[in-house]
C-alpha cells in the first residue's frame, strides 16, 4: 500500500486511516493498530512542522513493506534532513519540572514501535523507516 499526501496537518487524519487499514490487514489488534497510528502521526507531524516548516505544497510518501516477520512503514520526504534516531530520550522528571512542551514526538515513536531507522537518500530525499513485528498469527499464515 502507498499514500502520497501534501504536507498539511489536515492530512493527518487520512494518514492514520491509511496506516490503520494497512495494520489491520496484517492482523494487528486494535491496541497495536492505535500505537502504530500514533507513531506514524508523530513522524508525519515532525516532517510537516520541522522538515518542511509548514510549507503546504510539498509531498510526503508512506509505503507499507512486509519484510519477513516485520511490518515496515517507510516514510520519505524531501525536506530538511534530520536523523530522529540521534535525539536523546527526554528526562521526564526535568520535563515536568520545567513545564516544557513539545519534544515528546520522537520519544513516542521509539516507545511505540519496535524500531525506527533513518537514511539520507540521493537527491536530498530522506527516509524514515519504522517497524513492528507482525503478530504471530499473521506470520504463520504467510
Amino acid at each position, binding site marked *: 500500500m502507498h499514500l502520497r499526501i501534501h504536507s498539511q496537518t489536515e492530512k493527518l487524519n487520512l494518514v492514520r486511516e491509511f496506516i490503520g487499514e494497512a495494520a489491520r490487514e496484517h492482523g494487528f489488534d486494535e*491496541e497495536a493498530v492505535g500505537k502504530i497510528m500514533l507513531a506514524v502521526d508523530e513522524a508525519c*507531524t515532525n516532517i510537516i512542522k520541522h522538515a518542511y516548516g509548514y510549507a503546504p505544497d510539498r509531498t510526503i510518501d508512506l509505503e507499507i513493506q512486509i519484510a519477513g516477520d516485520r511490518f515496515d512503514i517507510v516514510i520519505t520526504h524531501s525536506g530538511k534532513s534530520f536523523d530522529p534516531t540521534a535525539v536523546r530520550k527526554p528526562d521526564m522528571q526535568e520535563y515536568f519540572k520545567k513545564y516544557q512542551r*513539545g519534544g515528546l514526538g520522537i520519544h*513516542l515513536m521509539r516507545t511505540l514501535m519496535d524500531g525506527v531507522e533513518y537514511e539520507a537518500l540521493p537527491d536530498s530525499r530522506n527516509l524514515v523507516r519504522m517497524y513492528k513485528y507482525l503478530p504471530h498469527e499473521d506470520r504463520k499464515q504467510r
Partner: protein
Amino acid sequence: MSTFKIQVRESSGINILELKGYLDAHTAPELEKAFQGLLDTKKFNIIVNCRDLTYISSAGLGVFMAYIEDVRKNQGDIKLSNMSPKVYNVFDLLGFPLLYDITTDEAEAMTKFKGGK
C-alpha cells in the same frame, strides 16, 4: 470535515471543557484557543472531560503543558476526567499522571476542586 470539537460549560464555578474526536497537530490550536479564552477571563478551575476524546498525539499533550503552570500559579488546576483506556495509555506512557490529576469521572474532579485540592 471537523475531526475535533470542544464544548465549554460552567457548573458551580468550575469550567468544563468537553473534548470530542481527534486531538492532533491539526486540531490542537482549537484547544489552545479554548484554554486561552478561560485564562483571559481569569477562569482557573478547569476540568477537561475526555469521554468523547478518541485520540491524542503529542501535539495535544503539549497544549496541557502550555497552560498548567499559569493555571496553578493562579491557585487553579487542570483536572482531566473520563479518559478511555486508549487515551489514558498515551498519557501514562509518558508519565503525565505524575503532573496531572486524572480522575475517573467529572464528579470526582468536582469534589476535589471543592475540597480545596
